[in-house]
């Protein structure tokens, strides 16, 4: 019998885990300054990560989801976006948020439990993190549809993890996005683990990228620890989206070097040997190795960068800690555009009421 449909999934890698080029790089990656900018973005994300965990461990930050080892996914996709595009992140895209102008202080505020951390001064239209897994995928269609209807040359980029691909929201979103041909890019940060569940138990599918096939949209896999590959694939998908060719799904294969969050202990369910193995493939060291071999980066510059990032993070952490929590009655402020009479009664009757001592 003849095959009536066939598909294949490509995988893109330029920079292997030893920091050697395995394929001719795209134009942007031939410019050392561009690569150094990507490198700096990843190092800043990791510096934030380190400080956030330290603050959490000392009781000065809430439960925190680390992006350790996944910096290339966040920075690569953000670098491919235009400022006017809209990012709909999961909750490990600190590197993307920083790249797009969310401040370190805002990130600390968010993870410290303060809504002001979502009131981004920079990317005003970007969505806040989405903690209920994958439920933001349909929002990306709405955002992209808005661009399509207004005939704007913009796109929505939605990031979710490997676990999210098991959710109905994501399946619905990929399918509907394909039908409406909206300018959206869906990025799977496949870090191998959904808390304690390895990806091989998440799905029987050989790749997560092939979830796109059933939705009738392009799907591809990239080495998620190769920032060049992530940026390249995202740019290509965004170009297609802007040209009216519809949405895409990119699976960035990376590894969660950290616990799920600071409330998790991954040693309960995975071997240290596996983690040690993946440390050999992490994204920052490989790009540094490449830059050093290319003679455009050295120990002095590395030390200077680490110092700069460390100082920026310390400064932001100090600002966050010094910031007074929101006044209690402000919990009523943004429930609605205008506080209904019924809620005025509740506010005024609360301990934190308009005239209360708080």
């Amino acid at each position: 019998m003849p095959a009536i449909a066939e598909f294949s999934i490509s995988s893109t890698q330029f920079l292997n885990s030893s920091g050697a080029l395995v394929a001719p790089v795209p134009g942007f990656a031939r410019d050392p300054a561009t690569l150094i900018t990507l490198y700096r973005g990843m190092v800043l994300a990791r510096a934030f990560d380190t400080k956030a965990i330290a603050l959490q461990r000392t009781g000065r930050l809430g439960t925190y989801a680390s992006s350790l080892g996944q910096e290339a996914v966040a920075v690569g996709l953000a670098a491919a976006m235009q400022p006017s595009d809209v990012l709909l992140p999961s909750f490990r895209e600190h590197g993307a948020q920083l790249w797009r102008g969310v401040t370190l202080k805002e990130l600390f505020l968010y993870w410290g439990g303060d809504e002001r951390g979502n009131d981004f001064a920079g990317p005003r239209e970007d969505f806040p993190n989405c903690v209920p897994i994958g439920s933001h995928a349909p929002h990306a269609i709405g955002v992209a549809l808005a661009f399509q209807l207004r005939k704007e040359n913009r796109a929505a980029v939605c990031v979710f993890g490997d676990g999210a691909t098991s959710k109905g929201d994501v399946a619905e979103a990929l399918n509907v996005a394909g039908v409406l041909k909206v300018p959206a890019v869906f990025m799977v940060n496949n870090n191998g683990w959904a808390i304690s569940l390895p990806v091989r138990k998440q799905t029987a599918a050989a790749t997560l990228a092939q979830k796109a096939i059933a939705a009738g949209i392009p799907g591809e896999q990239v080495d998620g620890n190769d920032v060049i590959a992530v940026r390249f694939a995202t740019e290509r998908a965004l170009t297609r989206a802007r040209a009216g060719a519809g949405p895409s799904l990119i699976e960035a294969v990376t590894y969660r070097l950290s616990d799920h969050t600071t409330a998790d202990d991954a040693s309960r369910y995975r071997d240290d040997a596996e983690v040690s193995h993946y440390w050999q493939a992490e994204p920052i060291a490989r790009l540094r190795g490449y830059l050093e071999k290319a003679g455009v980066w050295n120990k002095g510059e590395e030390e200077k960068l680490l110092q700069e990032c460390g100082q920026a993070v310390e400064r932001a952490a100090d600002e966050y800690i010094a910031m007074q929590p929101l006044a209690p009655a402000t919990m009523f402020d943004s429930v609605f555009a205008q506080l209904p009479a019924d809620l005025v009664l509740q506010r005024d009757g609360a301990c934190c009421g308009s005239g209360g001592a708080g």
Partner: protein
Amino acid sequence: MSEVNLVQAVNLALRRAMAEDSRVLVLGEDVGVNGGVFRATEGLLALYGDSRVLDTPLAEAAIAGISIGLAAQGFRPVAEIQFAGFAYTCIDQLLNHASRLRTRTRGRLTCPLVLRTPAGGGIHAVEHHSESPEAMFAHIPGLKVVIPSSPARAYGLLLSAIRDPDPVVFLEPTRLYRFAREDVVDDGAQVPLETCFILRTGRDITLVSWGAMLKETLEAAGRLSEEGVEAEVIDVATLKPLDGTTILDSVARTGRLVVVQEAPLTGGFGAEIAARVASTGLMSLLAPIERVTGYDTVMPYPRTERWYMPSVDRVMAAVRRLMAYR
């Protein structure tokens, strides 16, 4: 002015809202070419085209989620879910996202969407088509919940809902869609949210209801009047945020309260009204509060559903008990 039924009034409001504001979009299953399974969106596709009237794939959670993205981008999406029984998958989107986007971002992103869905039983429909989920929606902070009970209020309340800067769940009583016609002036005038409407004044007892149950409640009030009992009938209309004042003021005058709801008893919205009157208006009560409701059963199939639905007789019996209370 023209005489229309409730579903036609919904259609008139949608036409008016789309005409006056290009940000208003309609999306859902079968809302375009087919004009909606109840014809609520009939004619909109021809008038406004497929960029403003979107037939979506069969994916209710996505319909709600897409509406959130559109709303955050400044559109005014009006999503239709074919039956309230299929809106449960939207609750995640409404609860985790639509209702809290404004709060989470301190007002940076907002969510002015309307989710319309037919609700309620008594229409001899197949299972899952006769749900009364209003209390579930009303329990969600940041969400407004509106249920019209007449064509004119459906028209004016839907316009208010669409123009509202925050998310509104608009539950349309299926049983009333083609029940009665009344004059609706299609002048774009809205009926305010957060307002209970006194449909009939009376000195002896307050009957509070919403949606389709007002049919039985009003009929009971009319028959009680023949017995010399003058009942005041209140249409809650907007369950959330609740206009508690109108209800409390009425009970202060009458001293007696019956809440009539089609939804099951336990945890229903009638409990909220009863609790408020009990805690704030207790001293004006001359008798206990009664609730006439559906039962804590699964909604029966059509051949027995009438035994579930609160009837005129059940409302009258409750009133008589309270009038006789000493």
